[in-house]
């Protein structure tokens, strides 16, 4: 299959890129591994659900409006299409049981992010889930993650999650926020001019108050209790580095715990294509390096959205637009002057939004105390059941890289391909070797970047038989 621009990921960034590129005259293929476009920000229920408008949120309208634009004649949308690797100029897509190569003159990677997994004793119990997972179950399936849930994390993402839970009739025992409002004041200047964000936050808080949900500041989750499923959560007060203060533990009875301590970007596809990554100190994660025009070090590959920095849907939309324009310019569909003119307001908006996003990352980005309870028994690699103790032991034996830890302990060799444990393994390496986390490189990525059935990788003639 040949196309001008291939866009991988149909969240706000991918959708915006597809629309801009198509409007500039390019043929666009928009690929997403999920069943429907929208990504995480604009996730919605499957067909068959009918939900009263009062239960739906602002995102729903925004998502629908953007999805409607995908009907542009030059955009072809392929869902349930998994991009598992790129070899030379061939983008390999697995769909309907087989693989095919897509050739595109420009590639926009907008693969988004996922909830940062944070390990603590008991976190593998059924019922302990990520904040995003809790929101997905509540908002798209209208199933409660539990009758009574504890929501623990840091930052404004917890608010829309709480709203989704409340609208799904879940009782929230408490919202446990690691920071304290007093810590937000020094950043007041950067937050100036972001009134719509504040208004949103106040709306959420009002809904929480009306539902009688207490917010507990300056605390974090330290343990989940239960034998075959979660039955209670233990929280503790924390200092500025999110280290638990001894003697402050409190047990709260719940049948679900949702943790929201930030996000990790899905940089694997970009990395496997040769894109350089850069380490972000506040988000404590590796992102794809890009110029303001969303170009990467690889000619013809552009990026947008959460894989460039955690910024939220507003930035993702703007970056997607920029990437779409840059892609169109790259293949000659848009002359440089026109591209510059159309990009200019988007670049300004991005700079403005990034000031806010940066402040949020500084305020709510994960602090080292989050990993203090990686004790010998706590599972770090969920897939292969590797404990923090086993990882610490192999670092003591001389393993200096995530790859060596993986080879030695199998941490990262499971089905999730290291997505759950990789960041924590890096934290353990940095802590035990007393080195800067920025010097623990992101491991080398090779295809398949997601698990793909063997049959899908065969020569087409063989796959058919």
């Amino acid at each position, binding site marked *: 299959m040949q196309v001008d621009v291939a866009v991988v990921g149909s969240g706000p960034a991918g959708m915006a890129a597809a629309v801009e590129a198509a409007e500039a005259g390019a043929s666009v293929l928009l690929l997403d591994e999920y069943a429907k476009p929208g990504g995480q920000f604009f996730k919605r229920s499957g067909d068959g659900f009918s939900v009263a408008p009062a239960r739906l949120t602002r995102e729903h309208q925004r998502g629908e409006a953007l999805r409607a634009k995908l009907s542009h004649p030059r955009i072809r949308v392929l869902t349930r299409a998994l991009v598992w*690797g790129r070899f030379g100029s061939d983008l390999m897509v697995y769909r309907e049981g087989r693989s095919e190569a897509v050739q595109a003159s420009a590639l926009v990677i907008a693969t988004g992010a996922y909830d940062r997994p944070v390990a603590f004793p008991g976190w593998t119990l059924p019922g302990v889930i990520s904040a995003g997972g809790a929101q997905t179950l509540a908002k798209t399936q209208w199933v409660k993650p539990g009758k009574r849930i504890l929501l623990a994390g840091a930052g404004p993402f917890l608010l829309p999650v709480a709203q989704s839970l409340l609208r799904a009739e879940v009782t929230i025992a408490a919202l446990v926020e690691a920071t304290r409002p007093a810590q937000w004041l020094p950043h007041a200047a950067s937050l100036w001019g972001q009134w719509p964000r504040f208004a949103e936050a106040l709306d959420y808080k009002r809904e929480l108050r009306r539902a009688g949900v207490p917010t507990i500041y300056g605390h974090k989750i330290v343990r989940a209790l239960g034998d075959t499923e979660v039955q209670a959560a233990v929280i503790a007060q924390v200092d500025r580095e999110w280290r638990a203060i001894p003697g402050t533990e409190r047990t709260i009875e719940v049948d679900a715990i949702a943790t929201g301590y930030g996000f990790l970007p899905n940089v694997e596809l970009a990395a496997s294509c040769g894109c350089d990554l850069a380490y972000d100190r506040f988000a404590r994660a590796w992102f794809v390096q890009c110029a303001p025009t969303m170009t990467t070090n690889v000619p013809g590959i552009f990026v947008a959205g959460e894989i460039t920095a955690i910024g939220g849907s507003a930035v993702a939309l703007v970056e997607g637009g920029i990437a779409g324009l840059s892609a169109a310019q790259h293949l000659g569909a848009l002359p440089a002057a026109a591209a510059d003119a159309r990009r200019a307001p988007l670049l300004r908006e991005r700079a403005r939004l990034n000031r806010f996003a940066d402040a949020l990352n500084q305020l709510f980005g994960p602090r080292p105390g989050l990993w203090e309870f990686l004790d010998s028994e706590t599972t770090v690699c969920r897939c292969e059941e590797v404990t923090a103790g086993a990882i610490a032991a192999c670092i003591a034996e001389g393993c200096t890289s995530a790859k060596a830890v993986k080879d030695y302990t199998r941490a990262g*060799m499971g089905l999730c391909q290291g997505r759950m444990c990789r960041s924590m393994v890096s934290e353990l390496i940095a802590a035990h070797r007393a080195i800067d986390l920025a010097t623990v490189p992101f491991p080398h990525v090779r295809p398949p970047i997601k*698990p793909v059935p063997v049959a899908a990788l065969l020569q087409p003639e063989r796959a058919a038989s």
Partner: protein
Amino acid sequence: MPVEIQQPATSSGHNLRGAVPAATTTVDVCIIGGGLLGATTAYYAARAGKKVLLLEESELASGASGAAFGGVSIGIYSYSSARVPLSYVELSKASLALYQEAQEEIGAPLDLDAPGSIDPFYSEEGTRRGRERAEGLRACGVPCEFLDYKQIKEIEPAVSPAAVSAIYCPVDAHVTPLCVVWAFAKAARRYGAEIRTNVRVDALIRRGDRVIGVMSSDGAIHAETVVNTAGIGAARLTESIGLRVPVDASRGQMFVTERIPPLLRTYVHNIKQTPSGTIVLGATRENGFTETATTVEGTREILDWAVRLIPALANVKLLRSWAGIRPVPPDGYPIIGRPDGIDGLLIAVMHRGVTLAPVVGRILADLAINGSTPHDIDPYRLSRFANTNHGEAEETFYAG
């Protein structure tokens, strides 16, 4: 017991050892390369009481040793354009015995499993060649049987009728090479060996007709014996003293799947099921490639053929791919021993390092300690390449 997590220091990130180069160190045996050969040599030398230092430029098993399939086979897979010396079969047998001994002695898991190997043939012509081969193997003392499809299916129900016939070698084994390297390295440390990773060896130090040590990023190391087991990098090092070691590169792409319920008992050519339940497949043979990239062609070559042989693999999910560069001497056979005219240096470079690592490590340790070994290693001397013109190695086997 909680693990103590300290605040990371804001250092430049160099490994603490490398940040401050040591003063000149003197040891009995300095081993270059932390792969299979380096680890086994370190173990046997340290166990014999020698002061051993192993230097590895990256992490242990980061070269071909970490990428290998892990087959430990007695002579079925030979790589030669000439007749196979019986000594090669003897070495392989001795190595398998050492693996079993090591498993008990070392007490660390090698993932050693000896269920036998099945080497299939897919046509009448292949069957004819295979039958000859089986006879040749038996003449060399390799226990093996020639099976038809019905018999293959009794041992491995998952194999399809594409396998018309096969050589079954019931004593063949497989290991997880990474585990082997780590286990031997750990055991070597217990006997007092020092292993330094992230240390680069830049050159050998030669004084007259003797190699007296190495120059490394940790400073100068003086050693009674320097052992070059640097794999694909071995040739570069010896060039620094004017000695040519011919080594060709052959890339092998490898693949591994998710865990599945037990499917395979033996290893069928290059497909095996590990103790973890995953299926390991590979490898390609791409001569001259030195980049450890995996390709669509390589993926299809290995998987197409695997699904033809074991149809149940079609619905299993592939999780990872990787590639290793085999260091292959021009005639396919190992280079082992002291190069003519130079003292203080031992070299070992080979393809099929997995099979031979324990015995070669033992040989190198013996040579370092008292200059001799009970094994016949004359066929593997470096000087055999001096004046001969060897064609490209072929995958054939002839009995001696």
